[in-house]
């Protein structure tokens, strides 16, 4: 997909975002070494369960992390045809991390300094180059401002349509484009008067109206009714083929990911455990997958299981403790594919994300032999 010569649109490298845990003397390692690429006109799906760090990773890209210490390492390179930038430029000047045996022990961070620097970098990109939509669309629109005004604000800020008339026209065009019925009426209504599905359409319109290079969709269907969900996915599918916009799609819903994504990254415990084309990662063949991906897919009720009223396959063991992350593979305690030969390694060494086939990377000792 991605040509080797032109850099990918978004290249996240070893991103680390930590938060302090309750006692302020330990960290929640929310995102712990995530590397990811989004190519031009490509949709990359990030799938994982709650606590896997997928949303935090997306927010880190947007520079929207406000809790401390927040982003403490890595690089995020953004390269559209208009702008080339490292979104974490100069981060190392504000952060000093002391590590011991690969574990972060102490973080010195000049919060306000980095906050300012980050705002400077992101200021010209947010909304214009990278747009974002969120879950819970009704809460994500300002309840005190009409939908139309929120749209025209984005348009005036980021496009050449500066006059009220132009921006209104443009806003109406986009409302129509996301298939909101009677756009003129909706233009003047407040978000509270609209359903969740309609609000999400308005959010999408707002995000796309500034014609960004990258769209980050953070759980765009979560919290919506099932029928509405599929309609939103339909819309996104359509807009994807029409506009060819690159998308970073975050979702816990495998069916949404499988419908929209070209490539899929599976996250577990703050790291990407598997990364590859959607067909391979979400496909039937469990033998070439990370054990977590395989188990996750198996726990979704399949038609066969429903028919037979079979018990669902589950992933045993506790959810990963992201504060006291174990030294070895993060999935080790719950993994059902540990063989005696690799057990030792699994328990003590964190595997790398390794290419097992062209364009298919897995972070597991099974494939590292």
């Amino acid at each position, binding site marked *: 997909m991605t040509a080797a010569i032109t850099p990918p649109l978004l290249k996240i490298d070893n991103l680390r975002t930590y938060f302090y845990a309750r006692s302020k003397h*330990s*960290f929640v390692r929310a995102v712990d070494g995530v590397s990811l690429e989004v190519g031009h006109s490509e949709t990359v799906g990030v799938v994982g369960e709650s606590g896997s760090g997928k949303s935090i990773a997306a927010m880190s890209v947007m520079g929207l992390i406000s809790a401390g210490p927040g982003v403490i390492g890595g690089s995020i390179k953004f390269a559209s045809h208009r702008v080339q930038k490292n979104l974490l430029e100069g981060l190392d000047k504000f952060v000093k991390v002391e590590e011991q045996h690969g574990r972060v022990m*102490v973080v010195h961070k000049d919060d306000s300094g980095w906050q300012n620097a980050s705002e400077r970098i992101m200021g010209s990109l947010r909304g214009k180059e990278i747009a974002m939509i969120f879950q819970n669309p009704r809460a994500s629109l300002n309840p005190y401002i009409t939908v139309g005004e929120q749209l025209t604000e984005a348009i005036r800020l980021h496009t050449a349509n500066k006059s009220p008339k132009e921006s209104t026209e443009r806003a109406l065009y986009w409302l129509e484009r996301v298939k909101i019925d009677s756009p003129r009426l909706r233009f003047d209504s407040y978000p509270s008067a609209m359903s969740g599905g309609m609000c999400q359409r308005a959010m999408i319109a707002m995000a796309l109206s500034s014609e960004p290079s990258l769209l980050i969709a953070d759980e765009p269907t979560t919290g919506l009714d099932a029928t509405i969900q599929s309609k939103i996915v339909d819309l996104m599918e359509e807009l994807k083929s029409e506009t060819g916009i690159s998308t970073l799609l975050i979702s816990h819903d495998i069916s949404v990911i499988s419908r929209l994504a070209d490539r899929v990254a599976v996250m577990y415990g703050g790291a990407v455990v598997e990364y590859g084309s959607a067909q391979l990662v979400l496909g039937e063949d469990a033998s070439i997958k990370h054990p977590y991906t395989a188990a996750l897919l198996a726990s979704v009720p399949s038609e066969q299981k429903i028919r037979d009223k079979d018990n669902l396959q589950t992933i045993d063991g506790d959810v990963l403790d992201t504060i*006291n992350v174990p030294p070895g593979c993060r999935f080790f305690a719950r993994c059902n594919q540990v063989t005696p030969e690799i057990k030792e390694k699994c328990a003590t060494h964190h595997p790398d994300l390794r290419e097992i086939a062209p364009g298919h990377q897995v972070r597991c000792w099974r494939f590292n032999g």
Partner: protein
Amino acid sequence: MKKYTQTSGEIGDFSQLPIWQKYALVDLLYVAYGLLIVALVLVSYVLGMFNLLPHDPQQINIELLMASPLSDGYLLGTDFLGRDILSRLIMGIQAYFLPGLLAISISLIVGVVLGVLSGYRGGRIETVIVYFTNLIDSFPRLVLILLVIAAFKPDIYYIMIVMGITGIPTVTTAIANKIRFLAQKSFIEAAIALGLRTRVIIMKHILWYNCRALLIIQATLGMGEAILLETSLSYLGFGVQEPVSSWGNMVQSGANYFLQGNFWPSTAPALAILFTILGFNLLGDGLNNILEDRRGR
């Protein structure tokens, strides 16, 4: 540069952490200071009750007018009549302590009952209670008190009863809102569905577990308000009358010498008021943060 450290071991159970790691240092300091003040007030109240004072608070000493602190065995100096300021301050606590407690009890007890009725029962009772609280809230407290003074007499207990009543709406609204919040989170319904008795739900789950912080704060704030109110009324001439001392009339009478540059007789009680109210307010704040487990600020 801020420093964040990770202790190498397991963090384990939060509740087993030593207290200074569990809560923000500021909160602990607030509470410590507040408790100190409360203890001082209590001790002084008892001392005053049994007349265990360094000097007779009403003993006039013409020889030593406006003595500065630490002079001649007068720890805090003397006032414009040469009376010992420290003794008068200690005696002054008598003026507000019991009446203040009365006012607080009225606001808390009536406020809790009305709050529970309004939040838990809802419906028509709620409407009546909300009307009542709005009604009380329509009066400026001091104006209502002046009205009562005009109609009856300037008695501190009457005044504190009015203060207690005017304190009801705050408590009622806070409790009712809390209950509504709990109801919104299916909390109360879950207790009912389990089959718990209404009494248990209200007393144990609502009041004890979820409203105690709120009530403590109201109580501490109430004490602060009682002090300020007593002061204001003394200033207006309706409080404790000279020669009996109260903090209010000490500030007031001392203030007559203020413009001549004799600050101390008025400033000493003003500072006493300041530190005491600060103590009560910070105690409430700190306890709230600790009980509600809201860390830092």
